């Protein structure tokens, strides 16, 4: 069972709540202080991506984020319910191609650059992004 699960409607303000929760739990799970910035940013990116996808495809559906600290690693999974139709950016950056709304390419680039380990599972029913970082303790006993 996921240790903590957060479900929120597809609004940018909630991405901040998700960042706050992820950072707090990461800290408690014993993720190194120097990695907390990366956790905050990567989780924020994954949630922003999900919010944008929902706003385009299914604004009424909630987004889910699962945070687990029971495996010796701090593991976060962000799940959206928007059909995956991403154009994976393989070619080098071309300014003209970039829109200034949310850019999936940048988002995923940031996540891959920051998470210690990332897996993306796109499917017609939605995308799961799973990220994890080393953690020194699970739930500590008081």
């Amino acid at each position, binding site marked *: 069972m996921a240790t903590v699960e957060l479900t929120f409607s597809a609004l940018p303000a909630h991405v*901040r709540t998700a960042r706050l929760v992820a950072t707090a739990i990461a800290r408690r799970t014993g993720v190194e202080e120097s990695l907390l910035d990366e956790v905050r940013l990567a989780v924020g990116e994954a949630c922003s991506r999900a919010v944008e996808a929902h706003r385009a495809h299914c604004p009424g559906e909630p987004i889910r984020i699962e945070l687990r600290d029971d495996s010796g690693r701090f593991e976060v999974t962000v799940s959206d319910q928007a059909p995956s139709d991403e154009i994976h950016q393989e070619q080098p950056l071309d300014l003209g191609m970039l829109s200034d709304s949310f850019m999936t390419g940048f988002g995923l680039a940031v996540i891959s650059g920051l998470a210690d380990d990332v897996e993306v599972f796109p499917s017609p029913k939605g995308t799961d992004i799973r990220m994890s970082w080393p953690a020194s303790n699970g739930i500590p006993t008081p």
Partner: protein
Amino acid sequence: MDLKLDHHNEDRLTIVEVEGEIDVYTAPRLRELLIDLVNKGNFHLLVNMEKVDFLDSTGLGVLVGGLKRVRAHDGSLELVCTQERILKIFRITGLTKVFGIYASVDEAKEAHGKDK
């Protein structure tokens, strides 16, 4: 931590001071400001990122969007940033090659003076 925006002109440059978090929640305000500045004929923008404590890809998107707009007028959009945590994000996304990034407003002004 919310987003604070301010701007003023120095010589031919419009300096945009940004403080706080540029993220999916606040980036739309920065986008509006940049569009507004360009619409009013300010084509040489220098965005001071020294007081930004958080930047995500939505923020990057807004900066790239601003760059596209000023370029359409032969302008420029450059950045002041020395914070490693913010620079890292530009590096990861390859955007250090797209933006001029300076260590201080003065350094940027000097480089600009030479250009023109």
